[in-house]
């Protein structure tokens, strides 16, 4: 069955350092979404990737979808304390509209 791993589980960085989280699937994904959840808050949509090899940027955030549509990454350049939270990938397998969330990467930024 579908298996998607999100790594790392935790990441502590100094403010100003870069951060990357990865979402890896054993099967092809139809699309992938990324969400951010602040401590005590609810998941908030960041972006959706649909095309093979797609790269999208939002200010300091860069999102990539692998050529085989089996993996994705979220990279934050020069982290700030406002980046603190848990980042989730969410994916739907081909032919379904059922979104499954990854286990998340909890980011802590040390000032």
């Amino acid at each position, binding site marked *: 069955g579908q298996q998607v791993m999100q790594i790392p589980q935790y990441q502590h960085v100094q403010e100003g350092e870069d951060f990357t989280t990865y979402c890896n699937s054993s099967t092809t994904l139809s699309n992938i979404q990324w969400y951010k959840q602040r401590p005590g808050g609810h998941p908030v949509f960041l972006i959706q990737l649909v095309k093979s090899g797609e790269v999208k940027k939002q200010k300091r955030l860069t999102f990539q979808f692998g050529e085989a549509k089996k993996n994705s990454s979220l990279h934050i350049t020069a982290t700030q304390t406002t980046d603190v939270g848990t980042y989730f990938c969410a994916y739907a397998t081909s032919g379904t*509209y059922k979104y499954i*969330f990854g286990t998340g990467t909890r980011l802590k930024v040390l000032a």
Partner: protein
Amino acid sequence: EAGVAQSPRYKIIEKRQSVAFWCNPISGHATLYWYQQILGQGPKLLIQFQNNGVVDDSQLPKDRFSAERLKGVDSTLKIQPAKLEDSAVYLCASSFLRGGGGNTIYFGEGSWLTVV
């Protein structure tokens, strides 16, 4: 635009008691989701509605959980009887379409349940 509304925000009950959560999605959103999020884990989809029909409820523990979406708008999620492992945040979410093809899922603030 008003967001997804949920109530109550917090609830503490004893095991074997019942509880109900209410959700009002964003106006015009056909798809409604209930997710369960246990502390430290990702949201787990319990049930997905398209208008007032169930699209997926494969992960809903049907012996104790039930959900309905009358008239294709508001929804309620009920747990009866509750177990200790049901302690979690219950997140309601909605989307305009059926979840694919550029479709954003909007979450409510969640209903925090503690079973003691």
